[in-house]
C-alpha cells in the first residue's frame, strides 16, 4: 500500500518522466528540424544537373540567370522568379524593394551573363557561342531580358538567328 506522501512523490516524478518522454520522443522524431527547407544563397554557385538537349540547357540557363540577377539585387532567386512572373508582380516587387527599371535591367543582364559563364563551365555551351551571346546580352532591353529569363529556349533560338540562317548550327555548338 502506497502512503499519501509517496503518492505525491510518485505523481511529481511521474509528471517529470511523462513530460521528458514526450519531449524526447518528439525531438527524436525530428521536431526541432520541422521547418521550411532553406533556400540557397543566389550568390553561391549552383551546380548544373548534367543537362541533355536544348530544353534542359535552357532550364538550367534560366535558373543561373535568376541566381545571378537575384544576387545582384540582394533577394532570393525564388522572390525574383515570382516577381518576374507578371507585370503586376514586378511592380509590387519594385515598390517593396525600391528597385527601379534601370537597376532591374542591369541586374538581369548581369544574371544572363553569369548564366552564359555557368553554361560554359558546365560544358553545356561552347565558348564560340558564349562570345556573341555576351555581346547580345550586354545591351538587351529590360522587357526582352525578362522574357529571355522566362524562356531561355527562345534565347538560344535567338542566338541561332543572330548567328545566321544556317540550319542546325546551334546544335553543333551544343554538346
Amino acid at each position: 500500500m502506497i502512503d499519501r506522501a509517496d503518492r505525491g512523490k510518485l505523481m511529481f516524478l511521474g509528471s517529470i518522466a511523462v513530460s521528458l518522454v514526450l519531449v524526447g520522443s518528439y525531438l527524436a522524431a525530428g521536431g526541432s528540424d520541422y521547418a521550411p527547407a532553406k533556400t540557397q544563397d543566389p550568390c553561391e554557385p549552383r551546380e548544373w544537373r548534367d543537362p541533355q538537349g536544348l530544353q534542359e540547357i535552357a532550364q538550367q540557363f534560366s535558373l543561373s540567370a535568376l541566381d545571378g540577377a537575384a544576387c545582384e539585387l540582394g533577394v532570393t532567386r525564388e522572390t525574383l522568379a515570382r516577381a518576374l512572373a507578371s507585370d503586376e508582380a514586378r511592380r509590387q516587387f519594385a515598390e517593396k524593394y525600391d528597385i527601379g527599371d534601370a537597376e532591374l535591367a542591369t541586374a538581369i543582364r548581369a544574371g544572363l551573363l553569369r548564366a552564359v559563364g555557368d553554361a560554359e563551365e558546365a560544358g553545356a555551351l561552347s565558348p564560340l557561342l558564349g562570345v556573341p551571346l555576351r555581346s547580345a546580352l550586354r545591351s538587351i532591353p529590360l522587357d526582352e531580358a525578362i522574357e529571355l529569363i522566362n524562356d531561355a529556349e527562345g534565347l538560344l533560338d535567338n542566338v541561332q538567328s543572330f548567328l545566321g540562317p544556317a540550319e542546325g548550327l546551334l546544335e553543333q555548338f551544343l554538346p
Partner: protein
Amino acid sequence: MSDAARPRTTALALAVGLVLADSSIVVLALPEIYRELDTSVTAVTWVLVSFNLVIALAAVPAAHLARRFGPGRCAAFGLAIFAGASLACGLSSELSTLIAARCVQALGGAAAVTAVLELLPATVGGERRATAIWAAAGATGAALGPALGGVLTELISWQSIFLLQVPVAIVAAAPILAVARHEAATGIISTELRRTGRPHLLANLALALVSAAIAAALFLLVLLLIEGWRLSPITAAIVVSVMPLAALAGRRLGGSVPSSRTRAAAGAVLVAGGLGGLALLPKAAIALTIPPQILVGLGLALVLSALTETALHGRAPQAIHGGWTIASRHAGVVIGLLALTPIFTHDIAQQRTDAIDAGTAVVLDSTVSPLLKIQLAQRIDERLGEEKDKVPTIGPVFEPLPDDDDDREAVIDLREDLQDQLDRGATHAFSPSFGLGALMALLALIPIGLARGREVEL
C-alpha cells in the same frame, strides 16, 4: 448537500463556469471575427485580451462590493450586466463596439464570480468544499470554452457564442435572485465581516504564470489548427476538446494526493511538458497534438485547483481572496497573450516567406515545362496577394491539372511538396511561442517551491 441546495449549487457553479469560459470561448471564433470584421491579428486578439484585462482589474474591487452590498445582490447584478453585455457583443458589427461590450461583460462577470464564492459555503455547507467547487467550475469553464466556441462558430456563427450566453446567464441568476431579495428585504448580508488578510502572494504569482502558459496552449493551438493547418472551426473544436476531457480526468487524479504543493508542481510540469511537445511537433498531424494536449489538460486541472485552494485556505473573506486568484489568473492570461502575440505574428510572417520561397524553389527545380513553371509562379504570386498575411491555401494554384500525363504527375508531386513546405512553415512559426509558454509553466515552479510549509493538506 441537501436536495434543496443542489439546484442552487449547480446554478452558482454554472455562473462561475459561464463567466470563466468567456476568457477562452472566443479563441476558436477569432479567425472568423478576424475575417468578418476585416481587422489584423493583433487587433482581434483584443477581443480576448480586453475581457481578461478588465476581469483581472475588476475582480478584487468587485469582491469588496459584494461584501458591502451583499453577495446575492452583487452576483445577480453582475450576471444581469454580463447578460446585457453578451447581447451587445452578439449584435456588434465593428471591432471597437465588440471590444467595448467585452469590457462591460468582464465587469459583470467579475462581480458575479467573486460574489458566488461568498454564497457557495452557505449552500454546500463548508468553505473547503465551496472552494473546491468554485475552482473546479472555473477550470472546467476555461477548458471547455474553446471547444464550445468552435462548435457554435461552425454550426451557427461567432455571434451565437455571445447570444446563447444570455439565457444561460438568466438561468444561473434565477436562484441567486432569491438570495438577493432576502438581502434586500432584511438588510442582512450573509457574509461574515472578518478582517481582510493579505493575499497569498506565492500562490497567486504561480497562478499568473501557469495561466499565461495555459493561455498560450489554448490560443496558439487553436490558431495553429485553423490558420496554420487550415482546419474548420468545428474540426479544431473537436481536436482541442482533448484538453478539457483530460482536465476532467485530472480532477480524479488529484484527489489521491493530499499535498496541494505537490499537485501544483506536478501540474505545472505537465503543462510545461505538453507545451514543450507542441513546440517540437515533428509533423503537421492532428494526432501528434493529442499527447501534448493530454498533458496540458491533466496539468491544468491539477495546478489550477491546487493553487486556488492554497490561495484561499484559511483566508477570509473568501470573496476577496477569490478575487485575487481571479485577478492573478486573468492577468496571467493577458501577459501571456500580450507577450506571445507579437512573437508569433512576427514568426508566422517570416515562416510564411520562408515556406513560399522553399515552395517556389521546388517549382523552379522541378522537371515541369518552363511554360508551366511560369504559369505556376504567376498563380502562386496571385494567391499570395489574395491571402495577405496568412498561410495560403495552395491547392487551387495547381487547378486544373495539366492534360499531359508527365506534367500532371509532376504537378501533383509539386503540389504535395509545396503543401509540405507551407505546413512546415506554419508549424515552425508557433514553436518559439509554445516554447515560451513552457518556460512560463516551469517558472511557476519557483513560487510553488517557495510556498513550502504553507501548503494545504486535504
